[in-house]
C-alpha cells in the first residue's frame, strides 16, 4: 500500500514539475504549448542514453551518473526549444499550438523510426535510479521521492521568484496585450523566448525523471494524452497563473488517474481494456467541464476569462 502511495507521489511530483513549466509558458506568458511531449521525449531519451550501459543496437550507453543524465536532459531540451523558437514563436496563438503539436508528433516519429538512435519501438530498458545498486530497491524509492520532491520545490521557488521579479512583470505585459506593452518588439521577443526555453528545459527534466523512475521508455511512453493533454488538464484544474494551484492540480488529477486505475484493476479483465478509454472519456469531459464551469480553476485569477471588450 505504502509503495503505491510513494509511486503516486513521485509521479505526481514529476507531473507537478511539468505543470509548473507549462504554467510559466501559458499562465504567465500566454504561449499555448500543445507539444509538451516533444520535450518529454528529448529529456527522457537524452538522460536514458547518457546513463544506460552500451548496447550494439543504438547509440549512447555512456553509463554516466544520474546527475549527468539530468543535465543532459536540460541542455538538449533547452537547445531544441531555442532552435524552435525562431520559427515558432513568431506565430500567434492557434498557429503556435498547431506547430508545437506537429513538432511533438514529428519527434515521436523520429523516436519511433530511428532505431539507431533510440532503439525504435523496442525502447530503452534498464534506466538506472541513482544509488539503487548501493541501497537496494526500497530505500531507493524513498530517495527518488526525495529527489523528485526536491526538484519540484526548487522549480516552484524559482518560478515564484521569477514571476515576482521585473522579468516576471515583463512576462505579464507580454501575455496581457503585446500591442499595448510598452516594451520594444525585441524585448518582447526575448522574454517570450526565455520563458519558452526555460519552460522546455523544465519539461525535459520532468521527462528524465519519468524515465529514471519507470526504468523503461519507448515511443509510446509519451502519448498526446499522457503528455500534452493531461498536463493542460492539471493546470486548468489548479488554476493557470497560480504555481501552487497547478501543483495541486497535478496531484489531484494524478490522484484521480491512479484511483481509477485501482477501480479498473478490480473489474473483470474483459472490461479492463475498455476501462482505460472510459477514463480517457472522463478526462475529456472533465477538461470541458472545467472550462465551462470554473475556467479559472481552483486557485487561478478570474481575469483569464474576462469579457473581451475587443469583441464588440
Amino acid at each position, binding site marked *: 500500500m505504502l509503495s503505491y502511495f510513494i509511486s503516486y507521489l513521485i509521479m505526481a511530483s514529476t507531473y507537478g514539475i511539468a505543470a509548473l513549466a507549462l504554467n510559466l509558458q501559458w499562465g504567465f506568458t500566454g504561449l499555448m504549448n500543445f507539444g509538451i511531449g516533444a520535450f518529454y521525449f528529448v529529456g527522457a531519451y537524452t538522460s536514458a542514453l547518457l546513463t544506460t550501459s552500451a548496447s550494439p543496437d543504438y547509440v549512447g550507453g555512456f553509463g554516466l551518473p544520474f546527475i549527468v543524465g539530468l543535465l543532459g536532459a536540460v541542455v538538449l531540451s533547452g537547445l531544441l526549444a531555442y532552435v524552435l523558437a525562431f520559427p515558432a514563436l513568431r506565430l500567434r496563438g492557434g498557429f503556435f499550438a498547431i506547430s508545437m503539436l506537429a513538432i511533438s508528433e514529428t519527434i515521436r516519429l523520429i523516436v519511433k523510426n530511428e532505431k539507431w538512435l533510440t532503439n525504435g519501438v523496442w525502447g530503452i530498458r534498464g534506466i538506472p535510479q541513482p544509488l539503487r545498486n548501493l541501497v537496494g530497491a526500497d530505500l531507493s524509492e524513498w530517495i527518488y521521492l526525495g529527489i523528485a520532491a526536491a526538484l519540484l520545490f526548487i522549480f516552484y521557488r524559482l518560478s515564484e521568484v521569477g514571476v515576482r521579479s521585473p522579468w516576471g512583470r515583463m512576462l505579464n505585459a507580454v501575455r496581457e496585450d503585446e500591442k499595448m506593452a510598452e516594451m520594444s518588439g525585441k524585448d518582447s521577443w526575448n522574454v517570450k523566448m526565455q520563458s519558452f526555453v526555460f519552460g522546455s528545459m523544465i519539461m525535459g527534466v520532468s521527462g528524465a525523471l519519468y524515465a529514471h523512475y519507470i526504468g523503461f521508455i519507448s515511443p509510446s511512453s509519451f502519448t498526446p494524452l499522457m503528455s500534452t493533454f493531461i498536463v493542460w488538464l492539471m493546470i486548468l484544474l489548479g488554476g493557470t497563473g497560480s504555481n501552487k494551484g497547478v501543483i495541486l492540480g497535478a496531484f489531484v488529477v494524478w490522484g484521480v488517474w491512479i484511483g481509477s486505475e485501482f477501480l479498473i484493476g478490480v473489474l473483470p479483465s474483459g472490461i479492463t481494456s475498455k476501462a482505460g478509454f472510459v477514463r480517457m472519456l472522463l478526462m475529456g469531459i472533465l477538461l470541458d467541464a472545467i472550462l465551462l464551469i470554473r475556467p479559472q480553476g481552483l486557485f487561478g485569477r478570474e481575469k483569464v476569462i*474576462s*469579457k*473581451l*471588450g*475587443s469583441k*464588440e
Partner: protein
Amino acid sequence: MSLLNVNNLSAGYGEVDVLHGISLDIDEGELVATIGPNGAGKSTLLRSISGVIKPDEGRLELGGTDITGSEPEDTIRMGMSYVPQDENIFPSLTVRENLEMGAFTLEGDFQDRIDEICTIFPQLRERMGQKAGTMSGGQQQMVAVGRGLLIKPKLLLLDEPTAGLQPSLVKMMLSKVEEINDRGVTVLLVAQTIDALRLANRAYLLSAGEMVLSGETEELLDTDRVQDLYFGG
C-alpha cells in the same frame, strides 16, 4: 412623437465604462448630430443604441418599446439601422450582395428597395457585380449607407459617414444624408466636421463619456466649447 429615447445610459468595453449617464431624445423626422472630441464616446453611443454593446445601466426605447439589451437583429426588425464608421462593408462580397445582406431580415422580394437605393446613389447601379473591397473609399461609403437603408429604416444611426472621404465627396455624401432625411428617415449622426453638424437642427455635445451640452445647432455653435472643438487648439 419621440422615436428614440435614451435614459441614463452607461456602457463600455470590459470592466471600464466609456459612457456615463447619457440621456437623449430624438423625435420622428429629426436630423440630430452628436459631436465631441476624439474618444468622447460618440461611436460607443451608437454601438450601445444599436445593440452591438449591451448597456451596463440605463434604458433605451425605440418608438415606445423597451429595447435595452436587445440584439441588433431585433432592433433592425423594429426599423433601426446602424452604419459604423469603419469596416462597414463586406469586402469580398459584391455590391449587390452587400445590399442583400442589408435585407437579410426582410421577407420576400426587395428589388424595389435596391432600385430606390440606386436612385439615391446612382454610381452603384453599374457596379452591382463588383466586389466591394475593390471600390474607392467614397463608393464603399455609398455601399455602407445603402446597406443601412435597405430595410427602409425609421431611424438611421450614421457614424461619421464622411470620414476618410475626399472633400468633393464629402459634400456629396452630406447632401445625400439630407436627402435621406427628407425622404422621412430620422437620422442620428456622429458629426466630426462643422458642415456635418450644420445638417442637423439639434446636436448633443459629448465629452469624456458625458453629455455636456445640447441644443439647437446655431446656439451650440456660439458657445466656447463648440468653438474650441472646431476652431480652437
